[in-house]
């Protein structure tokens, strides 16, 4: 009988349950999707390295899921609490009729079970569908072939069911506990308790609002101009000022808006505008904290989603720049960027290696100039980034390469060769950190004396190419490309890259093994200072490595981003819905004095719109600055494609946040208009 009652309750108040159900279903879907990675191996043809990477991703996702389970657990508890509060009176009626507490608990437990099972099933179906799409995404991230067939992960299903079973169990215990604490009189009078209304002084709001603008503006300015410092040394103060600014913003916004719109009588006394503004101002005390929290969570969400997706593009781009050859060997250099192995090139050429696998073998050389970065920057008063000290600039030499060798490198990137007249030079760098400074130097068109000739750079832009395939990005701070004859034969050589393109069927790792065997053999015959030392990188290895990073970061970004998004939407939705019953009285008055239904619906829409979209708006402004900061960190690895990432992020936010907004709107209308 109690089960029947519970079933009828759920059916009857399905509109109240909608938010709860939606949150559960989204959570289950997310949980399943991100725990089903293991199964993807079955349909994506992966290399061995990718296999182990995928295993790593799976582990990370499981670990993340524990944290996510806690967040979702709290959200679900919060939503459950909201439902119980809405039904206090009904529960009071049961008690009044003499139903024992444990039977009421039983009804609640059945209800939780019914909702739980329905949402679990819905969520799983959604999740299974989502995991198919994620598989396609993984394949495209890995640039691997997809032999698609339907996948289903038993492990993920069991893990999901288990996790949510625990959450449901906690909720049941919680409900029983809460029920025992209520007094009957409170349950019966639940809807008569009205909040005490305190109208705040509006003038203070204006001062606070201006203060918040100053704080946020200052914060933005600092982060925009000194992103490295904002993210490094001053992270704490910048975050703190940002949070305070956000809090003050929402605290004072309604008062400010009120005063501001009151100055225009036509706007203020138009339909229900006055009512909506007053309404928001009256409730701001109970709302501003949650709005600020939601704003910060949305910021995290947008940040996680956008950078997560952007990183993939960034890494892909940097991979292209840093893998000109199939296989490269970079000999060890000392702290002055000098090669320490004497006669490296001759020694390597003499090594007994089977060169039949080699398509092409190129040595690229780098020569020392008498200049360092301090010479070119400080003369121009380019102070560089705050983090780069004078000492560091002085210790960073400027090197030179021959035009013919650079053109060979360009050929590898399928770029047209460049031509230089006498006294001309082409300048490039792959240290992104100082790219702005280098651009300033190039734009100044100042000439520099190198090897006895004054040369002027002809370019203002450059590609950040590496001179060898290497995982060490940013190893060339500043390089002048000079006509071959301009570099004297006795110029000091500071670097030699041994680059090899292999024949198609050859595996780079096998070639590597052969080389190392030969080097080891040679090294045994010579004293330590004559030994060949250095590091090897293969194009394939770097690609897989970076793909792995891309996959991990993209998924962490998407996972956490969506969780934060759902969390913020749920908090707002529930808060608005629980205030709806208080506002019911006010809307009844409006109805009686003849406000039309459309007018009232419009004002509900306005009210909810302000609550939902102002935090989103501020979060977007925050994240534009935040992503710029993060991007200048990521920039070490190369430039990305923020636009595409923003579009996808926007789409995800619109879908989830929008759904919650609509459900809240219809739920709100339902509460207000019910008889």
């Amino acid at each position, binding site marked *: 009988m109690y089960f029947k009652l519970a079933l009828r309750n759920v059916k009857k108040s399905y509109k109240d349950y909608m938010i709860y159900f939606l949150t559960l279903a989204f959570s289950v879907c997310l949980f399943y999707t991100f725990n089903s990675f293991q199964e993807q191996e079955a349909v994506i043809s992966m290399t061995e390295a990718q296999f182990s990477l995928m295993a790593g991703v799976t582990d990370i996702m499981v670990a993340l899921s524990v944290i996510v389970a806690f967040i979702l657990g709290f959200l679900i508890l919060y939503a459950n609490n909201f439902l119980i509060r809405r039904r206090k009176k009904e529960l009071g009626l049961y008690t009044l009729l003499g139903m024992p507490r444990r039977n009421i608990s039983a009804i609640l437990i059945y209800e939780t079970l019914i909702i739980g099972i329905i949402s679990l099933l819905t969520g799983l179906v959604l999740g299974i569908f989502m995991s198919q799409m994620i598989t396609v995404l993984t394949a495209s991230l890995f640039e691997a072939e997809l032999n698609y067939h339907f996948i289903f992960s038993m492990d993920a299903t069991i893990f999901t069911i288990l996790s949510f079973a625990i959450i449901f169990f906690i909720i049941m215990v919680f409900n029983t506990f809460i029920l025992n604490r209520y007094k009957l009189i409170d349950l019966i009078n639940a809807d008569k308790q009205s909040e005490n209304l305190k109208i705040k002084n509006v003038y203070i709001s204006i001062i606070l609002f201006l203060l918040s603008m100053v704080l946020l503006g200052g914060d933005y300015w600092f982060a925009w101009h000194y992103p490295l410092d904002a993210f490094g040394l001053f992270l704490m103060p910048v975050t703190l000022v940002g949070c305070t600014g956000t809090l003050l913003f929402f605290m004072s916004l309604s008062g400010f808006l009120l005063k501001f719109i009151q100055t225009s009588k036509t706007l203020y006394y*138009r339909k*229900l505008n006055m*009512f909506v503004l007053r*309404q928001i101002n009256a409730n701001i005390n109970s709302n501003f904290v949650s709005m600020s929290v939601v704003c910060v969570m949305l910021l995290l969400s947008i940040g996680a989603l956008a950078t997560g997706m952007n990183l993939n593009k960034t890494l892909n781009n940097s991979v292209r720049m840093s893998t000109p050859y199939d296989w490269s060997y970079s000999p060890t250099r000392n702290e002055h960027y000098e090669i320490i192995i004497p006669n490296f090139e001759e020694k390597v050429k003499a090594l007994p290696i089977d060169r039949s696998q080699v398509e092409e073998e190129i040595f690229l050389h780098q020569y020392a100039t008498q200049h360092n970065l301090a010479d070119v920057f400080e003369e121009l008063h380019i102070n560089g980034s705050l983090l780069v000290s004078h000492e560091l600039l002085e210790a960073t030499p400027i090197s030179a390469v021959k035009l013919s060798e650079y053109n060979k490198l360009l050929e590898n990137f399928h770029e047209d060769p460049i031509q230089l007249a006498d006294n001309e030079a082409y300048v490039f760098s792959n240290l992104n950190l100082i790219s702005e400074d280098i651009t300033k130097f190039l734009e100044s068109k100042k000439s520099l004396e190198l090897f006895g000739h004054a040369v002027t750079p002809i370019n203002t832009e450059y590609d950040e190419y590496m001179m060898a395939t290497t995982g060490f990005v940013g190893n060339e701070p500043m390089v002048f490309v000079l006509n071959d004859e301009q570099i004297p034969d006795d110029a000091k050589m500071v670097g030699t890259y041994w680059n090899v393109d292999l024949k198609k069927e050859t595996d780079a790792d096998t070639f590597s093994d052969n080389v190392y065997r030969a080097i080891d053999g040679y090294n045994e015959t010579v004293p330590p200072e004559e030994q060949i030392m250095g590091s090897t990188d293969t194009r394939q290895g770097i690609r897989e490595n970076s793909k792995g990073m891309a996959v991990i970061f993209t998924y962490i970004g998407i996972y956490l981003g969506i969780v934060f998004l759902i969390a913020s939407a749920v908090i707002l939705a529930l808060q608005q819905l629980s205030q709806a019953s208080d506002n019911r009285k006010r809307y009844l008055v409006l109805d*009686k004095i*003849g*406000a*039309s239904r459309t007018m009232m619906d419009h004002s509900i829409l306005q009210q909810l719109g302000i609550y939902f979209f102002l935090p989103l708006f501020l979060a977007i402004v925050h994240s534009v600055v935040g992503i710029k900061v993060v991007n200048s960190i990521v920039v070490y690895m190369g430039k990305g494609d923020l636009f595409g990432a923003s579009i996808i992020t926007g789409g995800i936010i619109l879908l989830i946040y929008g759904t919650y907004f609509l459900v809240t709107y219809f739920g709100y209308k339902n509460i207000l208009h019910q008889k």
Partner: protein
Amino acid sequence: MNTILQVENIEKYYGNKGNITKALDNISFTVSKGEFVGVMGPSGSGKTTLLNCISTIDTVTSGHISIQEQDITKLKSGSLARFRRESLGFIFQDFNLLDTLTAYENIALALTIQKTKASAINDRVQDVARKLEIEDVLKKYPYQMSGGQKQRVASARALITDPSLVLADEPTGALDSKSSRMLLDSMEKMNRELHATIMMVTHDAFTASYAHRILFIKDGKIFNELIRGNDTRKEFFKRIMEVVTLLGGDTSNVL
């Protein structure tokens, strides 16, 4: 004299086939322009149902209600809200002021939902506030006002739209006797000086004595009608009390 309200044979049934309650049983009456009509009756007599039907909050089962020759029983729900805000003014027992708005804004709200031009609002609010003597509370919020002040603000809100008919439902129900008297004086002034047509439902004889004509309702039917004529309020009050004794005492059942 032109007729503002014409009620013709209205009936209101509650319940279904087996069990019908007649809340209103064939009631007819008219209210002319500038009249101050009271409706009295014990609880359950149907007076609130009658008011709800006239105010279009509820619908009749049969019969017709015309306000200024417009049959409101035939209006569709879309035009009902419009009719309500343009032709009717309401004064409720529990004031129904919005606690988030100042007195001024509460009064202005009745105009803004009629989409009145913003420039005209201030003059009209000040005008009605002066007449009801609430100029000094205009900047206050409802929680800063006394019950009598709240009810006069509510009256101002009802009057400001120049309604054909002001409907008052137990306006003194939540007031102490001093505030009641002040409110009723205001309502008398509204009727006399602003020519507002008022229909007031009450079960309090003293409140009713301010009206010019009183309809007594019992079990959904008009039971009696009293006209004040040239009586003083005191004399009228006595006559009302006599009817009330007859009505509410139900002595016939006891004896």
